[in-house]
């Protein structure tokens, strides 16, 4: 008994030492993430009207995310691959639990385990691409209709559950992460075209299943000026914030739109508007460049991965990251409808920062186990 404990302790200590001395991280990616986190904290400090408590909370989340990142980076991709079906099944079951046990009032995303409260949908952001990659990696690629169908079902079940919560933004992100795996697996272009056509045909059906408030958002997005003080308010105020920022911005903590509380949700979903107002087009382009660098680095890591599973997974995680930026940026500039998607590592709060950093942990692990250079 004692021997077991002792050996366990040695293992933990050794793991810790390895974590400290030989972290398996990709330095360019880590530095880019660090810069992003710093930009996030600076912007948040302004958006929260210099609230140190908010910054402390966010920094604590980043720290927790960094710990997760380091820990996950130690797990070899082969082990991750073995766990994948379990991980996927458990997170989907938790989703079912949320939908079934939910209090049935408003948005129901949380599972309360007394000790911790969390959103199972966050797990899916990672377990979804893992599952699709796991399913596809032993099969003949590019996939045929049969595999595409199976993948479609694997994507549809959790996405539908999340959409039912209702959390359209997360459902979109989760579905996208699965679709990216399919895309990266080399699915034939003519099949892509066919499916896009089918999707366009199905849009009216999907419209039928949307919640009233979701439809309202889409309608408002199409004609924001029709409802300037109701749902259109967010879009208009956000566009005013962005547009009035100009080329060089109004300066840090000088954004009147958020300070005078015209801009709603200015520490969370609309923080990009605060950033754009205060740092202008120059700041925006620098930030977008940083995001492009991160996505590109992810794809580079993916291309150098050792096996199909790692490759597909790493690529999908990187591309999903882009979806966050695109949906959020599109939302605050009036390019896309208002969907509750945070700007990665900038928006305040939530488990999203922790989930994202854990995902990057997987990338770090894949990077550490990259191809033998031949």
């Amino acid at each position, binding site marked *: 008994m004692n021997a077991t404990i002792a050996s366990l302790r040695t293992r933990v200590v050794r793991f810790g030492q390895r974590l400290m001395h030989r972290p398996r991280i990709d330095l360019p990616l880590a530095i880019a993430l660090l810069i992003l986190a710093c930009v996030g904290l600076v912007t948040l400090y302004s958006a929260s009207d210099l609230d140190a408590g908010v910054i402390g909370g966010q920094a604590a989340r980043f720290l927790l995310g960094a710990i997760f990142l380091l820990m996950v980076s130690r797990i070899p991709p082969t082990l991750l691959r073995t766990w994948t079906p379990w991980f996927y099944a458990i997170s989907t079951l938790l989703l079912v639990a949320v939908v079934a046990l939910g209090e049935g009032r408003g948005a129901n995303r949380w599972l309360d385990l007394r000790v911790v409260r969390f959103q199972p949908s966050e797990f899916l952001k990672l377990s979804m691409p893992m599952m699709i990659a796991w399913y596809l990696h032993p099969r003949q690629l590019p996939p045929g209709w049969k595999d595409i169908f199976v993948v479609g079902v694997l994507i549809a079940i959790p996405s539908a559950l999340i959409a039912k919560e209702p959390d359209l933004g997360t459902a979109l992100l989760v579905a996208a992460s699965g679709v990216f795996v399919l895309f990266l697996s080399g699915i034939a272009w003519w099949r892509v075209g066919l499916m896009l056509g089918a999707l366009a045909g199905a849009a009216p059906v999907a419209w039928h299943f949307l919640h009233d408030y979701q439809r309202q958002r889409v309608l408002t997005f199409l004609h924001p000026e029709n409802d300037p003080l109701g749902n259109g308010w967010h879009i208009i105020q956000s566009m005013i914030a962005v*547009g009035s920022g100009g*080329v060089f911005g109004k300066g840090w903590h000088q954004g009147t739109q958020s300070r*005078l509380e015209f801009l709603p949700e200015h520490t969370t979903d609309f923080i990009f508007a605060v950033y754009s107002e205060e740092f202008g087009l120059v700041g925006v382009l620098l930030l977008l460049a940083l995001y492009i660098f991160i996505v590109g680095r992810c794809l580079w890591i993916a291309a150098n991965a050792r096996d199909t599973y790692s490759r597909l997974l790493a690529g999908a995680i990187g591309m999903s990251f882009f979806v966050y930026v695109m949906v959020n*940026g599109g939302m605050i500039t009036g390019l896309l409808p208002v969907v509750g998607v945070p700007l990665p590592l900038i928006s305040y709060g939530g488990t999203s920062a922790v989930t994202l950093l854990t995902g990057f942990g997987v990338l770090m692990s894949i990077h550490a186990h990259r191809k033998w250079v031949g």
Partner: protein
Amino acid sequence: MSGRNLKDTHGEASRFGVRALIGFALIVLALAVLGGRFWYLQVMRHDEFTTRSQANRVHLRHLPPPRGLIYDRNGVLLADNVPAFRLDVVPEQIKGMDAMLARLSTVVPLSGDDIARFRQSLRQHRPFEAVPLKFHLDEADIDRFAVNAWKFPGVDIAPYLTRNYPLGPDFAHVIGYVARIDEKDLAHLDADRYAGTTHIGKTGIEKYYENRLHGTPGYELVEVNADQRPQRVLERVAPKPGQNLYLGIDTRIQKAAIAAFAGRPGAAVAIDPRNGEVLAMVTVPSFDPNLFVNGIGQADYSDLLHDPDKPLLNRALRGGYPPGSTIKPFMGLAGLELGLRRPTDTVFSSGTFYIPGQSRGYRDDQRYGAGTVNLMQAITQSVNTYFYSLALAMGIDRMDAYLSKFGFGAETGVDLPSESGGVLPSPGWKRATFNQPWYAGETVIAGIGQGYWVVTPIQLAHAVAMLADGGLPHTPHLLRATRDGRDGAIVARPDPPEAPSAIRNPADFDAVRQGMIGVVYDPRGTTYNVGIRTGFPYVIAGKTGTAERFSRKGDEYITTKDKAILAARHRAWFICFTPAEAPRIAVAVVLEAGAWGGTDAAPIARKILDAWLATQPAPPAPSTLTAGAAAEQAKAGAAQ
């Protein structure tokens, strides 16, 4: 077959490379589109959005709901909203608040109270919200400020509705008053519902029905220019006014009751025994509630607080007095209902009653006693000995249990805040309060409403009303009906389900009623000589009470006839109901410094009954229980 199943790992890797490259290109393209959008907004449309950002001053203006009005049962307005003007300050726009206030006070007089209160509410508002500085400006102030307004950016005259109590002191203790919301209120207020509201019900009906009276606020989205001047209203959601309340009180009875006291401190409550509606609720002296609405000055408040007659004390609701002999009808009823006495059982009153085995004597009012009396005569003549002996036979526990059915020792539940529950003496109460044991002598004096007894006028009025309605308990209430807005229907207050009667045998009530009729109509009755029966068309059943403020120290009888000396020692009670056979009004009157219940409190009650009679539309129905017959019966009872 095997060739198709064999995985082409190298091909997969290279295909992936192509896909990743295409994907990356698409991503860069998409982000370039996003960047283009930013360029479009931040460069192409920059000027437009800069203008809009500067002009972006859509202000949300809260529209507080007009407070519900309060009427009496006939639609006489008791609480009204009248337009007034106040001075508002937007803190955000003031540079140097102290200097501004100093300059402003040379234009509009600002008292120390105004400024202190303003500074307090400053902390409760956000900097861009207007904070009221001075309420109820008079014409001269408005004119002077209007001329000097340009010197005071951020200070504005704003119209508002202020509460007004047209009948002032007459209803101060019933309606209560509204006053400015203070920090204590804020702790439990729904901030959204009270956005823009400055006043809240502090006492009385105004407090008890705050929720109904307040209404639902509305708002206005106002576009303002750079100087914060409103340009146009973009959107308006009208506030929903609070409910109008109709009270059961009849102003005519209320005023007559106040007049009857002629300024002597006391209280009176009249209740319709059939349903518990309060017809009048009077506390003398009173105060002007309008003083509190705009913030009462420290000097005025101090005067009210230190007035020896305590005008701020709500005597009808919170004034605690020993009930004295007014408890006797209830005691007598308890004796009958508990099977301890029959109506015909008699007791010999010699002037002094002794507990067997004890030497201390308990006195009758008449020095040599009233002789042999049954229950009716014991009530009519207020014979202590009868009740001493009854109390001893009953014991304090049964007395306690029965009298609590009539609401003694507990709040009546009338719809007013801060009611006092009084004291129904019991060993348990005494132990809890003084940690002392109970003595038999205390049971004896409790039997005549002395000792630890404390009742409030509303409590006694409720008990009398309950007795008058044959023991059916109706919670006394002021609210009679409500109305939503001016055009809504008047909705009567729903009657609560009927509770069981406290009287099992109606004959027991009859016996007590006969005794109470005797009080007024029997020549030996304690108010016979006062003549409150004279000229009243209905039969009145009543009971006097003269409670001593202090317990007697010596053994000597008080022989003085000096009313001033007696008044200093006594509290005078009178309770009554009429018509005796089918009561429609029950009254309790207490005069704090009254010599005798019969001579001092009863005439006040009669004036209340007269005022009530004048409000009754139908001429008096022929009585089945005429005054003459009542007197006959009373005599017959005495003869037995």
